[in-house]
Structure formats: structure tokens, C-alpha cells
């Protein structure tokens, strides 16, 4: 067994010696890593933004992409370590899958000389100036609480600023959806004639979402709107509304604008989408990396990317439609 181990060690040694030089490029090549949270259209659109910014820069840039198979630090960390182990990475654009658990691995990467740029999600509390974590270069992403407030205001405007509304959430404990719900509560509180009659958690399952919404529709005869904190929650709620024959009578707002959500909107299941701007996040992240590389010392620690509200009235407007997370196959 010892001999076998030695053999393996030698093989690995030879391989690494022979492979490493292939990575070491000219000194003026900038190596940027992109490590999103999981395979999904949101991050795919972000990757398109990254690529676009690299193309627009005209510089000699090598992009290294790794994508975790599930949204979890357990799957993301090994990929991170592998990227850092290359030894030539200058910048890492990363959507950390956990704000606490990813701190240490990213700190190690930073210590190895990689500049970190957070996209979509953050580590620590997201405040890279005064918060506990300050080593990343910047956090570029939308503010989920703000997204919740925007959803509340858009819904209020649509229903005449009065009536009962209901929230379909995924699971308690997920920072993004919790913040969306919280922002939505704050937003609804701005309207004295509006009231949230309840929140239910569907475990990210449309079937349970339908069941819960159907029961709430029975309980609250005068419900005017439902906020789904992600696409599945909204889709399930919308199906229940449709089955009760109330399509059009009750507004269903979906957070995020996947192409599937857009489809559900065209079918009348969902009435409004709150779109984030992943393309912007990816593009700006590369811009900030290049700025830093060029010697800019005042890269903003926080760049909020904002939202677009998509409804049936503006979905065919190309200026709005481009916010739908649609990627060509």
C-alpha cells in the first residue's frame, strides 16, 4: 500500500510540474475567476455579462469558470480551492453560497493574492466598509429588502392601495427570501389601508404552494394580491388562483424574472415580475476588477444594481424584456 501511495504521489508531482507551466501566461494577462452559486439562468445571464465586459475591454483576459452543482458551501468550497490552487488567479467574482461559512475559504483565497468581488450574495453582513468583513473589493448586487419594498409598492399601485395581501415564502432561514418578505412587509406598511393576512412556507414545492394558497383563498374572500418570494412560490400561488377561477381578480407577484416566470405571466398565472439585473452584476464586476487592475483605488465597496418591474403592459418593450433571465441554448 505504501508503494502505491508513493507511486500516486510521484505521478501527481510529475503531472503538476508538467501542467503548471501551461497556465503561467505573459505578465500582462489578467486571470479572472467566475464562481456563481449554482447552475441556473440567473447566473448564466450573469456569466454573459462577465463575457460581454471582457470582450468590451479589449484586454488580454483569461476567464476561468466553475459552477457548483448545488447551492451550498459544501459543493462551492472545493471548486474555490481548485481555482485558487492554480496560482495565477488575479480576481475572483463569486456568489458566496453562505454568508458565514464562505468567509474562511474566501479569506484564504484573498491571502493567496486573489482579489474578491462579491456578486448577488455577500459574506459577513454585506457592509465591506464598516462591517466585520472588509477584505473583498466590492459587493455588487441587488438589495433583497429593497426588492420586497418595490414589490409591495408595485402591488399597491395596481390594487388602488387597499386590500388584503398574502405572502408565499419558501422556507424560513434563507437570507434572500427572508429579506424579500421583510422588505415586502415594510413596503405594505406604507399603505394604511393594506394588510398582510399571512405567510406560509411551501418548502420550494409548487404543490404545497397551491394547497396553502387555495386554503387562504377560502379563508380570505377579499384577498387582492399575493407575493411569491421566488418563482415557484408565485407559480404555485398563481395556479391556485387560476383554479379558483380568480385569474385577473387577484394579482400574483413573482420575485425574479426567469423565462419560465415570463411564460407563466403570458399565460395569466403571474401578473408581475420583479427582475434583478444579473447581467449588470457580471458586467460591473469585471469593470471593477479591471479598474482595480489599472490602479483605481476608489472602487465602490457597494454597488446596488436595482430592479426592473415587468408587467404585461411592458413585457413586449425590448428595453424591459431584456431583463428576463433568458439565455439562448
Amino acid at each position: 500500500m505504501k508503494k502505491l501511495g508513493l507511486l500516486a504521489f510521484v505521478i501527481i508531482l510529475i503531472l503538476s510540474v508538467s501542467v503548471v507551466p501551461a497556465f503561467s501566461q505573459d505578465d500582462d494577462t489578467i486571470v479572472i475567476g467566475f464562481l456563481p452559486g449554482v447552475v441556473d439562468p440567473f447566473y448564466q445571464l450573469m456569466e454573459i455579462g462577465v463575457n460581454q465586459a471582457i470582450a468590451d475591454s479589449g484586454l488580454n483576459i483569461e476567464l476561468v469558470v466553475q459552477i457548483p452543482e448545488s447551492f451550498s458551501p459544501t459543493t462551492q468550497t472545493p471548486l474555490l480551492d481548485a481555482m485558487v490552487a492554480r496560482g495565477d488567479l488575479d480576481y475572483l467574482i463569486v456568489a458566496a453560497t453562505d454568508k458565514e461559512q464562505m468567509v474562511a475559504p474566501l479569506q484564504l483565497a484573498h491571502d493567496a493574492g486573489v482579489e474578491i468581488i462579491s456578486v448577488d450574495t455577500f459574506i459577513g453582513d454585506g457592509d465591506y466598509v464598516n462591517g466585520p468583513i472588509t477584505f473583498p473589493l466590492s459587493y455588487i448586487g441587488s438589495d433583497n429588502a429593497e426588492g420586497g419594498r418595490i414589490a409591495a409598492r408595485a402591488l399597491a399601485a395596481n390594487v388602488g392601495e387597499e386590500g388584503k395581501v398574502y405572502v408565499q415564502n419558501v422556507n424560513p432561514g434563507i437570507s434572500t427570501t427572508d429579506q424579500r418578505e421583510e422588505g415586502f412587509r415594510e413596503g405594505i406598511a406604507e399603505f394604511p389601508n393594506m394588510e398582510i393576512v399571512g405567510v406560509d412556507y411551501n418548502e420550494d414545492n409548487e404543490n404545497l404552494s397551491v394547497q396553502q394558497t387555495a386554503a387562504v383563498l377560502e379563508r380570505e374572500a377579499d384577498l387582492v394580491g399575493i407575493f411569491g418570494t421566488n418563482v415557484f412560490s408565485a407559480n404555485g400561488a398563481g395556479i391556485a388562483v387560476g383554479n379558483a377561477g380568480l385569474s385577473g381578480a387577484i394579482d400574483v407577484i413573482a420575485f425574479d424574472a426567469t423565462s419560465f416566470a415570463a411564460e407563466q405571466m403570458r399565460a395569466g398565472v403571474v401578473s408581475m415580475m420583479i427582475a434583478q439585473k444579473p447581467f449588470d452584476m457580471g458586467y460591473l464586476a469585471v469593470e471593477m476588477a479591471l479598474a482595480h487592475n489599472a490602479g483605481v483605488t476608489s472602487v465602490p465597496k457597494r454597488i446596488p444594481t436595482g430592479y426592473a418591474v415587468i408587467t404585461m403592459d411592458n413585457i413586449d418593450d425590448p428595453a424591459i424584456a431584456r431583463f428576463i433571465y433568458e439565455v439562448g441554448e
Partner: protein
Amino acid sequence: MSVNVNQGGEKSRYRQLILTLSRVWAWVFLAILIVFFTTSVNFSTDGSVNFLTVRTSQNILIAITPVLLMGLGQTFVIISAGIDLSVGWVMGLSSVVTALAARDLAAGGTEPYLAIFIGMVLGVVVAAIFGVINGVIIAKLKVPPFIVTLGMSFIARGTALLVGGGMTIGGLPPEFRNVGNEALFYLVSGGEKAGLYFLSAPELSRESLRSLDRIFSWPVVITTIFVAMAMFLLHRTRFGRHTLAIGGNAEASLRAGIPVDRHTILLYTMSAATAGIAGALHTARFSGGDARAGDPLLLGSIAAVIIGGVSLFGGSGTIIGTVIGALIIAVLQTGLVMLSVDPFWQFVVVGVVVILAVLIDQSRDLIIGRGDA
């Protein structure tokens, strides 16, 4: 020969009572739940909301369709003293395959309903293949079902995510939505269009939208057909008898010439296939293929089977029991939401009922004895 049984008629009567109670408690419990929610929902809303309505009953029926379909195959498997943990992700895989096939066929010019039908059949077939593999490994290689189906669950998960690219598969023919959401009957209560309509709903004004009820939507109809078939299969045919025999005494079944291996393979194939039907119907209801559609339902479906009185040791159980089990869970969930009970309590209550069911099953065994124990 009847010496033992006849001594102590008291004891025998007592046993009989326990036996009867343990058999019908789920029905009684379901009835109590319905009465409880009807009165308490009425009370808590000062009579403005009613639990016992056509609509709520239909909502509950739709909600249990995927759980029940998964539970049907699972009932057979657990009766044979096995377990199938793979059905959750197999359902998701079927949902994705159904969506992809229907989408691409329709895009290629196939008539939409034909594309949908072929897609659904394909989803079920792919699911069934996973069941065949489960069954072969369990029957021929003698690996415990718990381990095989746990492993297969991961394989199905990976396959579903690979095939679907980890995303919801949209872009389906719009007719798909009809299959998942339209109904056999439409009831309009009140208004000038009041009445029962067959197959299609009348046009209603915005104000009277709430007076329309869909009765027996297609997923409910399809599930009902499969429930009837499963009942027939388990209680009336040789296949069902052999399933019970294998669960009661696999060794004896083998000695009696029952092809136990082949039967086991069939059971796991069936279990995966019913999960596949659930997946195909999921795609129809939500007009999207979703790899994760079934995973959160797995434990609920096993809970339904257990509440329904199927012994985890195998050898006993009924299909109607599983239906009642699924109904109990759905009535609880719907009722608690209508009562505005904190959502976390819903899990607690379902958990309590599952443990209660197993306790009742065990106390029955303690009192009447199992085998020569």
C-alpha cells in the same frame, strides 16, 4: 384443535375489539378532523368561512394527487417488506423528461395533444426503467432495498438535473395547462348561469368568478383511476396475493413456488412508474418540468402509507388506507392554514399523527401477537 382459541371468550372479544379499532381508527380520525375543522373554522371566522365546501374538498383532492400516486406504488413495496426511497427524484426526472419530450415534439410540428401524450408516456417509461434497475439489484444481488433505493435516489437526482440542465423546463405547448388544470365538471352556484357544466366552463363576469368550482380536475380523475386499479390489483388478483405473501414470509413464498425475484422487480418497477405518473401530471399542472418536484413529497407519501396502516414490517396494508392517510395529512394542512395556525405547527401535527399511527399498529401486534412471537 381449537383448545387455545376457545379458552377465555372475554379475552377473545377484547382482542376483536382492539383489532376492529386499530383497523378503523384512521377513518374515525379523519372524520373527527373534518368535524373539528368545520366547527372551528366556522367559529374562528364568525361563520363567514366554511371548511366543508365543494371547493375545499376539491382543493384537498388535487393536493393529494402526487402524494397518493407515489404512495400507491409505495404501498405495494412496503407490503412486500421493502421500501422505495427513490420515488421523489424519480418523479422529478419524469417531470423533466415529460416536459422536454413534449416541448421538442410540439416544436417539431407534432400535434400538441399527441406531443403531450407521448411526453407523458416517455416520462413514465424513463421512471419505470429506474424501478427495473432498483428491482434487479434488490432481487438478484440481494442488496437491502433501503440502500439500493437511497443510491438510486441520488442517481435519479443527478440524471434529472443533467437532463434538464438544473432549470425549470418551460416553453411547453399551452394545451398542457388544460390537461393539468381543467376538469370533468364545472359547478356554478348562484347567478344567472347557475348549474353543472360538463367538460367546459361557461363565460363568467369578473364579479361572479368566485361562484365557479372545478369538480374532478384531470389529475384527480387520472389518480382516481389508478387508485381503483391498485385496489383491484392488491385485493383481487394473484399479483396482490403474492405481494402480501412475500411480505408475510418471503421464504415460504419461495418454497410455494412464487417467483419472488420477478415479483420484486415488478413491485419496484410499479413504484417508480406511479412516481413517473405523478411527475408527468406535475408538468401538466404547472406547465413546467421541475427536477425537484417530487423530493419534498417523498416523506409525506411514506407518512400517508404508514398512517394508512401499512406495516413497515410488511405483510399487511390496504390501498384505501393509503388514501385515508394522504387525506388526513392534506386535511390537516388545509385546515390549519384556514385556521391561520402558525405554519410550523403543521409539521409538528403531521409528525405526531405518523407516530400515533405506528404506535397503534404496534399495540395491535402486542395484543394479538404477530406470528409465534
